[in-house]
């Protein structure tokens, strides 16, 4: 025991923190370095790539640098397609000396293009060659696909004109293509590593445990991939209800994904047959009836696809995502808030570039709980003009207000309102606000009750 106490003292004294090096994330550095050093000794191309890959922070920058490659002087634009394996979307970047743009495309589209290029013999294309692809490249181009450890990528260079490539250009591109793969791999894996570490750190920060770190091996400590050791210690005030809730949300996400796959096919069948019947039915009343059915089907389709988005975890939210989230909450709480007018508005000016770094599922859960809380309170009244207003400040520091014109809470109630199992409602569990408050704490924020004339007013503040 003494030993353990000793270790935890050391932990705090040394100020040990989790670092990226503590995890051996999927990097093939050694193997790749070998490949590179093998080719670099005798090639001008490799020298160029060595130099450029070291000064570039990401693949986009690296692509831009490629335009300065000897033999590439005539090329104006690099199109770079990238798909991280396992993701349902790929990205396309258009990079030239003076401009840059990006676009998302479906993985199917990416894969079709990937296969088409893989199959072509000379990798030189005109407009005709890849007809049918939504592929806005002007004129003729040279393309090459690469399958890397964690990504599939496509590199395309073009002059933005319709003349076919010269032999010099073809030769330069082919030389470059031969050796460029490991450089892309290193740069992309590094990007991936940074991203993954961000995830690990987030999980680490939100673990319902205290993590003790040590430099030395002590009893009950486990080894990290690095030289450090760690041990998990349960937090004293571990809120069981909260953990169950987290698990339930996770499970729900999986369930919804399965549901989406199982439901989308029959819904598609209903959509098609309803479309046909809308045209066939001659009786006016029946036709209108059928159109209602068709529109309900379309709504079901969009709910099921939004649902899964709603439960997809993301760590950074744009203004648009937050707005969409609030509207999604309105849809999801419809059964509880049928006769309540729900409005969303932004407070003050919107910062278009605003990005909120927060777990989307938790944030959605908080908004959901607050809206349901208001709706339930309103449903107990006989008010005919029941209203819920959600107002968000879409700039730093983020604020989200949920305001209703229900009974509100008196001073005594306000003291207890966030306590678990405290409720004023007939069917309440007393967990909604308690869970929301603990989720807010995990997001580094707080929910407060603002006492005002009439109704309830909650505000969530993050990043203050």
């Amino acid at each position: 025991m003494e030993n353990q106490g000793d270790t935890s003292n050391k932990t705090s004294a040394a100020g040990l923190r989790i670092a990226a090096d503590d995890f051996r994330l999927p990097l093939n550095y050694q193997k790749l370095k070998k490949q590179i050093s093998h080719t670099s000794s005798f090639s001008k191309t490799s020298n160029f790539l060595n130099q450029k890959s070291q000064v570039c922070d990401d693949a986009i920058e690296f692509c831009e640098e490629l335009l300065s490659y000897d033999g590439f002087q005539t090329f104006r634009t690099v199109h770079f397609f990238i798909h991280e394996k396992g993701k349902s979307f790929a990205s396309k970047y258009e990079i030239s000396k003076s401009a840059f743009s990006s676009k998302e495309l479906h993985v199917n589209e990416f894969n079709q293009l990937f296969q088409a290029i893989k199959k072509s013999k000379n990798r030189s294309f005109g407009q005709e060659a890849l007809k049918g692809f939504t592929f806005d490249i002007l004129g003729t181009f040279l393309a090459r696909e690469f399958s890397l450890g964690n990504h599939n990528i496509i590199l395309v260079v073009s002059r933005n004109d319709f003349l076919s490539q010269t032999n010099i250009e073809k030769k330069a591109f082919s030389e470059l293509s031969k050796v460029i793969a490991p450089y892309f791999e290193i740069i992309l894996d590094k990007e991936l590593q940074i991203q993954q570490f961000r995830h690990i750190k987030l999980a680490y920060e939100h673990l319902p445990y205290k993590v003790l770190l040590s430099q030395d091996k002590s009893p009950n400590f486990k080894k990290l991939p690095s030289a450090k050791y760690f041990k998990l210690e349960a937090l004293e005030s571990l809120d069981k209800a909260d953990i169950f809730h987290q698990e339930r949300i996770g499970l729900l996400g999986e369930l919804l994904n399965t549901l989406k796959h199982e439901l989308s096919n029959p819904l598609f069948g209903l959509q098609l047959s309803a479309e046909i019947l809308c045209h066939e039915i001659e009786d006016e009343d029946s036709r209108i009836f059928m159109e209602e059915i068709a529109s309900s089907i379309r709504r079901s389709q969009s709910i099921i696809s939004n649902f899964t988005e709603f439960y997809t975890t993301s760590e950074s939210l744009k203004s648009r995502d937050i707005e969409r989230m609030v509207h999604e909450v309105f849809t999801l709480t419809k059964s509880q808030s049928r006769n309540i007018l729900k409005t969303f508005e932004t407070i003050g000016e919107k910062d278009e570039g605003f990005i909120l770094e927060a777990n989307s599922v938790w944030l959605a859960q908080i908004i959901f709980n607050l809206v349901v809380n208001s709706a339930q309170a309103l449903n107990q009244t006989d008010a005919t003009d029941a209203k819920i207003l959600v107002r968000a400040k879409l700039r730093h520091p983020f604020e989200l207000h949920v305001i209703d014109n229900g009974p509100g809470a008196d001073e005594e109630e306000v003291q207890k309102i966030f306590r678990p199992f405290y409720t004023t409602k007939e069917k309440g569990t007393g967990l909604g606000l308690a869970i929301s408050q603990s989720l807010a704490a995990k997001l580094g924020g707080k929910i407060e009750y603002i006492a005002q004339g009439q109704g309830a007013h909650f505000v969530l503040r993050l990043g203050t």
Partner: protein
Amino acid sequence: MKILVVEDEILIQKSLQIFLQKRGAEVDVSSNGKGAIEMILNKEYDRVVCDLMLQDITGFDVIEEAKSKYTLEEISKLFVIITAYSSEQVLEKASTYNCEVLNKPFSDMQEALDIMMSKKGKA
């Protein structure tokens, strides 16, 4: 034009049949893979619109069986694959046959029908 629609979701199957008939095609349907194979081997079709997830076997099994009658090139033009769940693996496999692949639900119904009715299949 003679088309076989292989799809186990009855409403999708019937709707496609009607849509294609309206465009002048002669349409046979099958709800399962084994029946489809029999029809492909015993009749002549200009196009087979085939779902991948069938109750008995997969659409890929149907294509494999069709190989006993058609060359690879003919197969690439004969089949149009329709699928609700297109993972990378599925698409990669589909691309080995070089067939047209359509995702359900179709984002553009008319375009999907155009592809099913096209003379050549995949360009």
